[in-house]
């Protein structure tokens, strides 16, 4: 082919191959991790545009069902109602796990305890036990800090760590991860739970759960029980550029980015 025609072909094809991926959903995924992945992807394939809106896992799943997004980010599993809605709309929700997150149990760094069993965690957060001495700690009343009822982490912890029992009535409901970390850091007898990314705060330390610290290895080997997958839902198996983006997220480079954001790689 003549060189000028070739150049024209290349220019026109790059102009017409502007493609867009619409991603909606969870704040846990959409605040830092997905944007970073999108940025790295764009560096490789500059013709792709991203539209990311992180207004909560429920909005992401609803958007896939309505067909207003390509990828729905969710830090939780599907609810029955959502599966029913999807079925009713002829949508098949396909899940791709792009990262793992662990919920770490934190105590004040001056607390001499280092590990707790799941039974003890259940007993502490449901209020069965109210003094640190009953779990082998120093003498002092346990101050329990939790998230509030609108948080997915609250629901997840209740289901997995408390086997669906109710939180103790003396627990204090705070609005976010940062607030829990702050209160536990300031209270010698405090205990709470936060996502992995908040362990770096000063004054707190994570406890071993059944002998395992929350870390990449313990999450991937399934030894740390309070781990959850961070999901991307699509309508049916991903295809086209959505497929390429999700494959990138699962690639070595993508998983490095996942880790740098503070989450855990999928092996």
């Amino acid at each position: 082919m003549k060189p000028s025609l070739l150049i024209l072909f290349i220019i026109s094809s790059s102009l017409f191959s502007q493609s867009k991926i619409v991603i909606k959903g969870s704040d846990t995924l959409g605040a830092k991790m997905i944007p970073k992945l999108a940025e790295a992807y764009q560096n490789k394939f500059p013709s792709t545009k991203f539209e990311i809106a992180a207004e909560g896992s429920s909005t992401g799943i609803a958007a896939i069902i309505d067909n207003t997004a390509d990828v729905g980010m969710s830090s939780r599993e599907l609810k029955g109602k959502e599966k029913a809605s999807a079925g009713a709309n002829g949508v098949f929700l396909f899940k791709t796990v792009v990262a793992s997150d662990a919920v770490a149990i934190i105590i004040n760094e001056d607390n001499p305890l280092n590990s707790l069993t799941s039974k003890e965690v259940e007993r502490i957060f449901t209020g069965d036990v109210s003094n640190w001495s009953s779990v082998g700690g120093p003498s002092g009343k346990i101050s329990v800090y939790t998230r509030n009822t609108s948080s997915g982490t609250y629901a997840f912890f209740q289901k997995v760590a408390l086997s669906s029992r109710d939180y103790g009535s003396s627990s204090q409901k705070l609005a976010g991860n940062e607030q829990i970390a702050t209160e536990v850091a300031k209270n010698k007898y405090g205990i709470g739970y936060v996502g992995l990314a908040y362990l770096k705060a000063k004054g707190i330390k994570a406890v071993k759960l059944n002998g395992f610290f929350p870390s990449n290895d313990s999450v991937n080997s399934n030894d740390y029980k309070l781990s959850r997958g961070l999901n991307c839902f699509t309508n049916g198996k991903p295809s086209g550029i959505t497929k390429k983006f999700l494959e990138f997220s699962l690639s070595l480079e993508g998983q490095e980015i996942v880790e740098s954001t503070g989450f855990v790689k999928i092996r």
Partner: protein
Amino acid sequence: MIKPDQKDRLIKAFFGGNAMMAIVILGLITLFLFKEGVEFFGQNKNELDIFRQSGMEYASVVSDQHNKQTFIFRYFEEILAKETEAYEQSLEGKAGSIVKISKDELNTFLEFIKSFQDIKDYLLLYEKKVVKLAAETKQFLKTKEIVSEVRSYATQKNLPREDFSITVEEIEYRSSFTHKELDRWQNYFLRNEEEEIALKIDPRPGETFGEEKINVINYVSEIKNSYNSEYLDIVTRQNEDYSRLLESFSYEFILQESEISFEKAKLAFREYVETLDKYESRLKEWDPQQDFPFSRAVTSFVLGKDWVTNSARQDWFGVLPLFTGSLLVTVIALLLAIPLGVGAALYVNQIASSREQSFIKPWIEFISAIPSVVIGFFGIAVLGGWMAAFSDERLNSLTAGCLLALMAVPTIFTLAEDSLNNVPRAFKEASLSLGATRWQTAVGVVFPCALSGIVSAILLGMGRVIGETMVVLLCAGNRIAIPDFTSGFGVFSQPVHTMTGIIAQEMGEVEFESIHYRALFMVGVVLFLVSMLINYSSQLIAKRYKSAY
């Protein structure tokens, strides 16, 4: 050209119309609030009936029994805490530590505590099992209701009968629905273009329960049978193991009082054992078919001691913890604000020189200009830290109370000062001319005269404080439980939740027209009634005791 006569009438109509509009809008808000709220009671009655029919009530009795055992456990736990503290102090060589024991010896007590909890767990496991069965039954009952509803709808709409031939009577007798059937019925409505109805049916694809993939089952008979087959055995086993544990326990207490407390705890345990037959009779007599009276739906809200939402078991909507929380922070705020506000008003109005007046007044009034969210932020950042010096909890009712007092002072100050001003000068001058000092005049003559206005000012300050949301949401600690008034002054260091705070916190997550949504509206109604009462009494007092000068 508009005649001046007509112009007058137009102006009157305009302003009158505005006034009418304000009242009409107030009426609409009230109506809307009450309409949304009152439907709550019907939904609550429904919830209570399902609570009983599904076996969740049975589970809650087992739960109560387990909680009573936990309560007894607390006595032992307290003793362990004191022993541990004494042990820690003896390690540090503090004065007064008598018996020196080794860590191993303390550990025998710790082991006792752990074994006690393990025996308690027998009942807990049974409770968890019953809860699971009851939750499934709840799902079954809700599904049955929906299927009946859509069957009636299909009949009404004259939709073809082939794939949905089950009759409403047949639905009543069913004790389970399979996932296949529900899926088929959902598709039936989709084919007949009734998408909204189809969405109500939830076939729960892919979920299993037990070994089979059957969908929703009524487990009420299982629950009733488990009373004889499991519950009685568990209680017997518990009694045996508890007695064995208590008898074989040998440990030398560090503190003398611990030994006395231990005997007391054993006594409490024996008292519990004597109440065992009460639990047994409650469980035996549980009748899933008996309906709750409608009054229960009302009292469980107005006098309910629990506000639990998003529970896997049963949601409870009792306003009492929130109401007492609001009341507690209001009382604290008023205790602080009244002396400050009224005192300042008296001083500024009667005693201060005009230079002091022009300095103090604007600054106090400036406080009311600070946004409440900034004050709340100051609370968590700074005041909480100071509070940690007095109490275990940083964010508690005292923290919120102090900040609310700060916000109430300008209101009380301005209105009290106003009413002091309205006392005729003749009174003050007459008193001074009779030889009274300025201070005697202020306290003995002017203040009692303006009292009705001052009381009215206080009530308005109270109204402001009760309705404040941001400060309490950030600083009151957010513990949903009735504050423990038996601990005397300790009640001030307890975190509380308030009516305003709970609405702000939970409104974002409730489903439109669900029972939780309506319950929050009812809390709003209670707030509205309280504010109206306060404002009405403030106006009444101002009017009744206002003497004509």
